[in-house]
């Protein structure tokens, strides 16, 4: 196996290795959404979580207005990606399913923007 050393690979690696530029994404992707954050919340999220993010006991949906934007961003990342770790799974199995359906219906959003919006709900 060692004998298969490829000079090309080594030189290529050496050109980049550990110069401090590794890993950073060069290209920035600009994603556009069908609805604004406010529209997504008012047309979709609010149906189950309430217009003020107060949650709905009958529907067993949690409140969304009890967390900071940073905490909410974590939860939204978990929900949208089916977990934040390699094989740990998600804390939100039901919402993971629902979110996929909602994204398919066009209710997609930027996580940071939505977390910021939700964190201000109770203060309205």
């Amino acid at each position, binding site marked *: 196996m060692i004998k298969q050393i490829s000079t090309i690979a080594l030189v290529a690696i050496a050109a980049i290795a*550990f110069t401090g530029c590794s*890993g950073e994404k060069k290209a920035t*992707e600009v994603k556009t959404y069908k609805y604004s954050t406010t529209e997504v919340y008012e047309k979709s999220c609010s149906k189950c979580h309430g217009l003020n993010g107060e949650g709905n006991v009958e529907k067993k949906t949690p409140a969304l207005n009890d967390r*900071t934007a*940073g905490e909410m961003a*974590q939860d939204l990342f978990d929900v949208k990606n089916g977990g934040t770790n390699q094989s740990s*799974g998600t804390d939100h*199995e039901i919402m993971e399913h629902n979110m996929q359906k909602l994204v398919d219906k066009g209710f997609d959003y930027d996580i940071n923007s939505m977390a910021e919006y939700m964190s201000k709900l109770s203060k309205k």
Partner: protein
Amino acid sequence: MKKNEILEEILNEVEKHPEIMSRREALKYLSVSPMAASILAGATIGASSVSASSAKGKIVIVGGGLAGMSTAARLNNTLSNADITVIEPDPTSVSYQPGQTLVGAGLWDAADITYNRDDFLPSGVKLIKGSVTAFNPDSNSVTVDGSQEVTYDHMIIATGLMLNYAAIKGLDGVITSSGTDNASVKKTVGKDGVHSIYFRDGSTATWEGIQELVAKAKAHKGPEKLQAVFTHPNTPIKCGGAPKKIMYLVNSRLEEAGVRDKVELTLYPNGGKMFGVPEYHEAILQQYKDRGFKWHYAHNLVEIDTKGKVATFNHHWTEKGAWDEDLEEYGVELKSELVEVPYDFIHITPPMKAPDVVANSDVGSDKGWVPVTKETMRHVKYENVWCLGDVAAVPMGKTGGSVRKQYKVVVDNLVASMEGKSLPSKYGGYTVCPLITSIGTVMLAEFDWSKKPTPSFPLDPTKERWIWWLLKVYALKPMTIHGMLSGRA
């Protein structure tokens, strides 16, 4: 540390395993390879520049592991009037945790990964050998060992996380990876076929456990296979690849002994995939198939009978539920059942959590982890509080590779905020998992929050390569110990 000393350290590592690569071969590759030159440069003169600042302020760093100590070193290099205090109770806090996989597989000894905190304390940085017992962010202070008040202008939280073995019925203990107060865990883990590389003593015991498994397999008769079980819990974990790495290494050791056919190797992860990045998920699935591994998703270890050698998992799934008018779709219902799995050897990846002192304080969060704006690493509520490493609430982090990116972001942003400037630096979620797939090969899985591979090198990142084994086993430790802990690499 000088270049030739680091080179010598790499060659010493190589020499321990001439069957994988001889010293002569390694020296040849290292001397012809500019890669080696750049590693040495990174560890000695610094791979990225630090600009000097005369900003003033008292900085307290809670935790002196890799994250805390590297941050202390880099701040110390940056600030001409540095006033930095590190609070750390564990004398071996800077030990090289990524090496625990290799200790578990019998490739390294515990001595190879044990490093002393006091040897890595940067010159001029103060050390308090104690534990923070309370955070008082509204009065800009922490309490040490219940009595000593330590005030700060800026605080960096780098406590690391706790291995919560006690959360599994039948096990006990909530410990750190390098702490020696682990007697409660060792009552049941590290013997009788129950193993865990996540703490240092446990990794040493794992190698004994693997040798016992090999011996048992050699003596084994009959058509029933021995069962080797590998778990992955339902919490975020440090080094998300390690539960699989140790499985690959057990496989290597069984193959080497000619008894692979006597043992069934099965992964029981709580989640429903091998990896969050689709390309790596697919690559790992193929590696599993090629090796004849089995796997059962959505199984979370909840109980273990170490006498009867039976592990109990909560197996969970969703079923189609009632029509949901608001969703305009059918909803789903959660279902679960307990599944008993007999084992001859089990590797446990424990549930993990933030230390209680963090979780229950104002700097913690509902899930314990310290909530930060994940791009800037600044606390979401307290502008003079920063956080990095395992205790930070950032998705997919909790690796030394994440810390290597995070500590530069924290230093850049903290110094800028001390100077009254806007925050210049953003973390993009980069992390790296050098996934050991056999003795001699590694898949270098690099990725970030885009959930796409972000390879540093122009090679297909889904392929297993010996060159990454060279990087993982021989180069990353000197880079970490001499480069990061001096605040440079």
